[in-house]
């Protein structure tokens, strides 16, 4: 059943596959984000209560969703690395962690910027904000552990265990607004049934969201390739790759 996946456990095959899909992510990101941002910032109507400040939504919500989504992906990779001991899964964990950390930071900062005028405060220790801050610390912990050992395999194991333990935080983030009384509002975009957002405001969000997903894909491809190369730098195929890239310059 999983036979078709086996060739991708080889770093060389994976590297070239990533090379192939990378431009698709790049172009999709460029198109979706340009349409999404222009639509969201210039043409979407202002909110009836919040006025123009609601436009932070178009960055805050995709970043917040992705901060948790990237973590789920990273934890899956960590599980594969611990159980099946794929070396490439370790490379994925260390490729994903800084991206997730950045998106968590963006969600926190944009949220604070919105909270000051709307709620009346930058920060409040409610369940949603606190659990998102813990997510940032988990990411920083994974990054730190990845760099704490000289032995990459050891580092991958330590970071992977932390990443897996941190998964408990994900449902807490997601349901914090339902389980407890929080200042943070409930979910808008994933709410089923009654629409919580007018359609002309929702469409640009979809473009921005898909665009951000593309951006994550693109940056992940780049970081993954870098990780694979730095972990396999003694291998002949990496040397061949480097020589190949250098030849045209030498010919000049």
């Amino acid at each position: 059943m999983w036979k078709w996946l086996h060739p991708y456990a080889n770093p060389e095959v994976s590297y070239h596959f990533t090379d192939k899909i990378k431009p698709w992510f790049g172009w999709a990101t460029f198109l979706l984000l340009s349409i999404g941002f222009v639509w969201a910032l210039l043409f979407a109507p202002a909110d009836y209560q919040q006025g123009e400040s609601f436009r932070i939504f178009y960055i805050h919500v995709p970043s917040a969703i992705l901060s948790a989504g990237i973590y789920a992906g990273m934890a899956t990779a960590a599980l594969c690395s611990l159980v099946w001991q794929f070396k490439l899964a370790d490379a994925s964990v260390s490729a994903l962690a800084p991206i997730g950390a950045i998106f968590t930071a963006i969600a926190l900062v944009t949220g604070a910027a919105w909270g000051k005028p709307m709620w009346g405060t930058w920060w409040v220790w409610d369940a949603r904000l606190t659990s998102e801050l813990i997510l940032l610390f988990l990411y920083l912990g994974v990054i730190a552990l990845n760099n704490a050992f000289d032995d990459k395999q050891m580092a991958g194991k330590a970071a992977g265990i932390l990443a897996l333990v941190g998964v408990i935080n994900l449902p807490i983030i997601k349901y914090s607004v339902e389980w407890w009384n929080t200042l943070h509002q409930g979910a808008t975009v994933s709410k089923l049934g009654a629409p919580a957002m007018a359609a002309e405001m929702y469409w640009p969000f979809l473009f921005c969201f898909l665009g951000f997903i593309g951006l994550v894909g693109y940056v992940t491809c780049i970081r993954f390739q870098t990780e694979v190369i730095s972990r396999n730098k003694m291998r002949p195929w990496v040397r061949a790759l480097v020589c190949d890239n250098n030849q045209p310059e030498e010919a000049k």
Partner: protein
Amino acid sequence: MNPRRKKRLTIVVSILTGLAVVAGLVLYALSQNIDLFYKPSEIHHGKEDTGLKAQIGQRLRVGGLVVPESVKRDEKSLKVSFRLADMKMPISFDPNEPMITIKYDGILPDLFREGQGIVANGKLAEGFIIEASEVLAKHDENYMPKELADDAGEKHAKPEYTKEQLESKN
């Protein structure tokens, strides 16, 4: 799956399950402390799950809906008082339900309206009055353009201040 992988998978899964149970129990035990605020009815009758009652003079947070036509603002200063009822969906107000009065001296956030959810931080005084030091507005997760809101008859004017009011605090 070969036995070594199976063993590793079992170890990882059982550790995670154990941690999830521990986290669940801890959060359950802490649940009344994680709630950001008391509801107005809880100030009257005590916390829903523990029956814990707030003491006079205790610093606490309350959250609820601003009762329409209850907002009284001083014309010369930032002093404002309003009544708060329990938050419920769909939004409705019953004159007989438990309410509390909030007194506040400061600038209200942009989202403050009658019928809006707010959270106030302050000291409980005799007669279900809270002298608030901070008033935060809660957003209700609904977004719509102005025209749509006008059609639906939603109130959406943010609080305005005169110069005299703003300078009174200094």
